[in-house]
């Protein structure tokens, strides 16, 4: 079999348990794929690497990332979406007097300015707030400024930063979920290049089948899955990974994740996100969503592999 690779959006951790499990349990091998898993990091851009052919597949950022890439003419196609609800959330201290998103008004709100800010903009818009009514600042990778109360509101991922706060004993916080404001941006897009789809559709199908099968197995055998992840990364903390896998399961199996199956692409939310991005000036022209998000492969994945 041809050697192929999958590029992750971050370092080895339970966020990608399905991929590691699929590899470790031989699902890729069984599907005829000679798979290498390439971790990512803050400097690695999955979209570019997959579009350029340096990597065959990728677990890329999410809805926005795929849209930007398509707008910039990257020949990238999403064939599945891992997370069914927005994995981002906003946290504020209970004693801060912030009880709803509306209370963000005039407050210092930190978010990651690499895409997730538009989710915030959408949430603000959905709650009837204008962007300039809120003091939005760039949030670093660390939660420490929030802990030091340099911000009133900070952004977290449900599967990581929120756990970090809990681990540090910070429980006096309130969490605001975008989905509660009716904003859904699916994240962790499963992507490949147009070339692959055109030339080797069978391999693409095999990859998606095996990956989703890996996820299903991971959720059904969590302890084993964490073992596999732990072996893949150096110096991981088991407890943190267990919590992460729990949270990841929650966001992957939410909504259509259970009804339709893992990896479902919610075209409606994607359309809304694109409309919002254009509204906020992050994109100039809409892209053809049909060619950017191709559900054909996902549809062919056997239910046994994707339905929990």
């Amino acid at each position: 079999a041809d050697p192929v690779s999958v590029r992750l959006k971050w370092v080895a951790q339970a966020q990608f348990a399905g991929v590691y499990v699929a590899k470790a349990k031989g699902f890729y091998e069984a599907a005829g794929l000679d798979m290498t898993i390439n971790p990512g990091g803050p400097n690695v851009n999955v979209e570019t690497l997959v579009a350029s052919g340096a990597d065959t597949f990728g677990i890329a950022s999410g809805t926005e990332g795929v849209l930007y890439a398509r707008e910039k003419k990257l020949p990238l196609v999403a064939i599945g979406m891992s997370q069914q609800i927005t994995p981002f959330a906003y946290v504020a201290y209970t004693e801060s007097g912030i009880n709803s998103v509306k209370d963000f008004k005039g407050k210092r709100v930190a978010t990651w300015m690499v895409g997730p800010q538009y989710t915030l903009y959408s949430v603000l818009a959905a709650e009837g707030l204008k962007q300039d009514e809120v003091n939005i600042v760039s949030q670093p990778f660390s939660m420490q400024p929030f802990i030091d109360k340099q911000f009133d509101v900070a952004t977290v991922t449900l599967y990581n930063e929120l756990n970090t706060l809990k681990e540090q004993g910070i429980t006096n916080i309130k969490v605001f979920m975008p989905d509660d404001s009716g904003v859904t941006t699916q994240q962790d897009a499963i992507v490949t290049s147009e070339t692959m789809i055109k030339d080797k559709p069978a391999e693409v199908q095999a990859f998606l089948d095996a990956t989703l099968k890996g996820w299903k197995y991971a959720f059904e055998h969590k302890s084993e899955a964490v073992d596999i992840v732990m072996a893949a990364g150096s110096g991981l903390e088991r407890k943190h990974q267990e919590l992460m896998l729990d949270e990841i399961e929650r966001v992957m199996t939410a909504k259509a994740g259970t009804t339709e199956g893992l990896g479902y692409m919610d075209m409606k939310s994607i359309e809304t996100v694109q409309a919002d991005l254009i509204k906020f000036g992050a994109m100039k022209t809409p892209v053809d969503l049909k060619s950017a998000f191709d559900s054909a492969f996902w549809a062919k994945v056997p239910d046994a592999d994707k339905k929990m």
Partner: protein
Amino acid sequence: MNARALARSPVASVVYVAAAWLVLVPLFKVQPRYLPPLPVVLADGLSVWPDLVAGFWRTLVETVLGFLAGVVLGVGFGIAFSASRIMERAFLPIFVALQTVPVIAFGAIVVIWFGNTIMAKVVIALYLAFFPIAVNTLRGLELADPQRIALMKSFGASHLQLFLKLALPTALPNILIGMKLAVALSLAGAIVGEWFGDTVGLGVMLLQALYFEQIPRVWVLIIACGAMGTLLYGALVLLERRFVWWRTD
């Protein structure tokens, strides 16, 4: 007498710092997120010992390869610059500007070209290491005494001979300074290089520690990097003591 020498040796300074850390942190009740107590850091280091050792070796190999390549390239450019003023005027400023280009900007290209191979790390380590070596080589070569150059010329020395027998020995002390600076930079290069999707190495561990906000782990890795850098630096100092003991007057 021996005790005194020991009290002034590099090992002693490390012991002093460790002692200060051990005593002062509990004494002033420093918050762990600013500086965790030393035993906590050591315990955390022990808990990931096998990973740490594996990472150490991998990063060491990348660093050394990148450093050696950087020495070759840096000395080469230093020589070219000293040989030709135009070269210096034309390219040294460009290299200075290149120093400002964050690896991140072209990291994607490096990964596309080299993938997750050791070469990617070596190239990045080289990119960071070669500049101080080039500048110090250039400066060192310029130090050659004009009267000694004249003497060599009177013997009919060729450019190559002038270079090998006079300019290079004159420059060696400076080249060594450049190398001492560069060795730390190539370590930094290897570490950052590992952030482009590697699976083993101190850089990978550091990235994870940063992302997961494991402050004791960050300190473990700082100590590990410091140990490796000091090891390499010490090797250069030994080399210098043995082979480059003279002063250029």
